[in-house]
């Protein structure tokens, strides 16, 4: 069936006219991400071979997001999953959706695609209906075929779309929700087959014609000044084509990768630096944090006008050290300055913000820079991805016409990635007749996001070292309910009197930025440990005590589900090194709910914690991809056990000392517990971000289980064996 061109135009024209009547209404109805880019064909394109191409500003980080977004788009369009082609994060092709972070991609990126595809579907149906002269309600869609069940007449998206049908601004047309065909299915991840066969999956695997290899020599410590290096000797090494020096930025380019590494090693040996001790005393980190410059914000204050409660007062302090993203693959980028345009391939979480910082770094207008996302090693936040793109861009500028691949060495990544901030918190509460009648909580935390585009300045460390320097900005606190250091600082429990104070520290002697959950893991750790301490003081079962203080029905349901899955029994005896613990949170108080039961054993000789089993319940609203959700929860649980039992960035007054895996051990295979998960699916409800939701509850449940097993209450992460042994009677 072919629709005549003039019919198509007539149909399209009629729709434009009707849409034009309600632009003001429509704009308000668009999802946040679409307001910035309302053009429909910026999100969805009907392509001739029978495919639907989807454009998203979100990027694949190994979390399976392109698969999940394809599922949402497939159902939104009413086509089979296999028809969807998806392109993520490319400044020359995709919408600008900021960063892929904060467990927001399914919620916000998915919302934009759901609405964009629904509107595209409505437009395609309306166009076909107008051409056929039937009301659109009569037509149905099956895998892109538009059919009139009454007559058997049919056409397809690919016949109807023509040129430019979707080249118009979205107005917020809504259609009844499509049938769930892809959504809710464990569709296998799109990226996995290539990854098990040595396919070119990662930016690290790019191999462009004429490509050269670059390496950088980072300062040995923060703020170190380069005073001299032996350029002549390095230039004489095999394969070396360029040594790039600007202020204290030092890098080189060589024909072969091992030549670049050898030249880097030679530069490291020959370089002289002036170093200054700028770091706090790690032995007195808590005091140092409290003494730093800060902005004091009261983020919750209620019931203050009520009379001061009577009862027993409790108080405790909790902390976390600086921790590393510690990606398995050091950061990598490819840059190519070609005919005045700089092309950069990067595993950044935000191609547009990175482009902005690259423009500053190089003094190039943004429209001369294209940043395209390519996958990297899992990042769990802001690691060296953006920085190495800056390095590659500077080296590429020195050798126009030649693509340059730069990968950081292991010590570059450990010493220079921005760490997850160390934090200190203090909780106090009054217990009266077995209930918490007053709650006070205070947080001290450095910033948790210094990504490109946040806080002004240049996030890229190459810029910091240049002459003149391009220093970083000072990030502002992220407002609640997302929060930064105060993320999840407000408990979900219903306390009549409650005050929460956030000290947003603006000093950053240690480089910090976004690491999975920002401050939420520390805050949930503190709140959920303190709740356990209060429950025990009240003589109550920790699960029953939590339920007694909660009103949120979904919170109650997820706690009950975890208790059931983990065979929680009130009053079960721990001791002799074996115990179990419970904890719960709703991520950001607005995303997925997770409750966990942790079973562990502690070695009497070494004090080492061996988590044996984690039983978790999750409510993430409508589940898009059940196996993808489970994978994220499992990963979050295991990573949080590693953080809370093992991890701590070591430093002295001058240098970061954790520079390889021996200086930063993480959880290994024999230490990984069994993980069992139950999911409360809520089809039709809003899909809630899940990637970070398990971390805080897991860290807290480990500490609570440690107490149950040993009667040792540790409030500082990591729950170090030496501290356990010292207190274990």
């Amino acid at each position, binding site marked *: 069936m072919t629709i005549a061109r003039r019919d198509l135009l007539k149909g399209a024209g009629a729709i434009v006219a009707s849409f034009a009547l309600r632009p003001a209404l429509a704009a308000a109805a668009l999802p946040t991400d679409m307001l910035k880019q309302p053009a429909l064909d910026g999100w969805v394109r009907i392509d001739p071979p029978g495919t639907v191409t989807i454009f998203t500003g979100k990027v694949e980080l190994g979390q399976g997001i392109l698969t999940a977004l394809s599922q949402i788009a497939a159902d939104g369009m009413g086509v089979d999953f296999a028809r969807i082609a998806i392109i993520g994060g490319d400044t020359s092709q995709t919408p600008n959706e900021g960063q892929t972070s904060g467990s927001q991609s399914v919620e916000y990126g998915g919302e934009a695609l759901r609405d964009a595809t629904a509107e595209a579907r409505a437009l395609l149906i309306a166009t076909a209906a107008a051409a056929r002269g039937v009301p659109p309600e009569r037509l149905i869609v099956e895998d892109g075929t538009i059919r009139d069940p009454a007559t058997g007449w049919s056409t397809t998206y690919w016949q109807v779309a023509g040129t430019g049908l979707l080249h118009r601004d979205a107005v917020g047309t809504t259609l009844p929700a499509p049938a769930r065909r892809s959504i809710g299915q464990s569709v296998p991840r799109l990226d*996995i087959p290539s990854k*098990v*066969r040595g396919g070119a999956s990662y930016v690290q*695997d790019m191999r462009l014609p004429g490509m050269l290899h670059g390496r950088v020599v980072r300062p040995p410590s923060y703020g170190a000044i380069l005073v001299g290096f032996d350029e002549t000797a390095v230039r004489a090494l095999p394969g070396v084509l360029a040594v790039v020096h600007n202020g204290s930025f030092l890098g080189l380019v060589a024909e072969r990768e091992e030549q670049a590494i050898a030249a880097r090693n030679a530069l490291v040996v020959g370089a002289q630096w002036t170093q200054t001790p700028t770091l706090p005393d790690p032995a007195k980190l808590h005091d140092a944090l409290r003494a730093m410059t800060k902005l004091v914000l009261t983020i919750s204050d209620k019931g203050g006008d009520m009379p001061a409660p009577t009862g027993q007062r409790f108080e405790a302090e909790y902390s976390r050290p600086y921790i590393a993203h510690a990606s398995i693959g050091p950061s990598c980028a490819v840059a190519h300055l070609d005919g005045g345009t700089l092309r950069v391939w990067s595993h950044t979480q935000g191609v547009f913000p990175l482009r902005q910082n690259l423009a500053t770094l190089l003094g190039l207008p943004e429209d001369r820079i294209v940043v395209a996302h390519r996958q990297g090693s899992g990042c769990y936040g802001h690691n060296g991805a953006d920085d190495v793109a800056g390095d590659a861009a500077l080296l590429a500028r020195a050798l126009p016409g030649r693509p340059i691949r730069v990968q950081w060495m292991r010590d570059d990544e450990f010493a220079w990635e921005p760490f997850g901030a160390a934090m200190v918190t203090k909780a106090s509460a009054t217990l009266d007749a077995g209930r918490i009648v007053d709650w006070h909580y205070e947080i001290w935390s450095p910033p948790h996001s210094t990504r490109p585009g946040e806080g002004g300045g240049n996030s890229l460390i190459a810029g910091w070292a240049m002459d003149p320097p391009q220093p970083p900005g000072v990030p502002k606190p992220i407002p609640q309910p997302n929060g930064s250091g105060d993320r999840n600082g407000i408990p979900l429990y219903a306390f009549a009197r409650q005050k929460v104070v956030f000290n947003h520290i603006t000093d950053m002697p240690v480089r910090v930025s976004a690491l999975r959950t920002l401050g939420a893991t520390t805050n949930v750790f503190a709140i959920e440990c303190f709740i356990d301490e209060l429950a025990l003081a009240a003589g109550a079962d920790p699960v029953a005590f939590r339920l007694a203080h909660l009103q949120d029905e979904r919170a109650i349901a997820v706690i009950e589900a975890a208790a059931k899955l983990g065979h929680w029994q009130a009053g079960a005896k721990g001791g002799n090194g074996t115990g179990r613990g419970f904890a719960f949170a709703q991520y950001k108080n607005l995303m997925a709910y997770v409750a966990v039961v942790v079973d562990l054993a502690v070695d009497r000789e070494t004090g080492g914690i061996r988590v044996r089993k984690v039983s978790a319940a999750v409510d993430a609203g409508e589940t898009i991809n059940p196996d993808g959700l489970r994978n994220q929860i*499992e*990963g979050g649980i295991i990573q949080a056990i590693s953080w809370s039992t093992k991890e701590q960035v070591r430093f002295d007054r001058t240098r970061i000392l954790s520079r390889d895996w021996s200086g930063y051990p993480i959880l290994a295979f024999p230490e*990984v517990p069994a993980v069992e998960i139950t999911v409360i699916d809520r089809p039709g409800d809003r899909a809630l971000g899940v990637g970070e939701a398990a971390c805080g509850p897991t860290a807290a449940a480990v500490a609570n289980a440690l107490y149950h097993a040993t009667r040792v209450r540790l409030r500082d992460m990591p729950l170090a064996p030496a501290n356990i042994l010292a207190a274990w009677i």
Partner: protein
Amino acid sequence: MTRSFELSVNGKTHQVEVEPQTPLLYVLRNDLALNGAKFGCGLGQCGACTVNLDGAAVRSCITPVAVATGRRITTIEQDGSPTLAALQDAFVAEQAMQCGYCINGMIMVAKAFIDGGGTASDETIRDALALNLCRCGAHNRIVRAVLRAAGHRSGT
């Protein structure tokens, strides 16, 4: 000084002209265009670069090309290995990764373990993989995938 080395990789012979101390990893990736083995640490600590040398799992980031010459080098790109095929299928079936950067090492250690006649159990696989790092927390899926592949290979 560069020298010429003959390398047998996945059953094919290649001639490369490099310094003798060049880690095998860079030759595989950059001269032979094999992407599977990954640079992770360059120190033999993480396992992302693992290949098989005469059937044994070795870390190509600290294996000089001069040591690898004259020996049978196998990478994840090898065709015709039933064990490798079973592992690859099993890792897809179990969706056994998140980012997947470490997975080359997991598969190549598992291949050496299965081909070497190791008895696959949850515990023996965890021990075999004890020195391979995964940061995403996909460990249990990886163990299940290896168990599945080992079961398939032994017909159980």
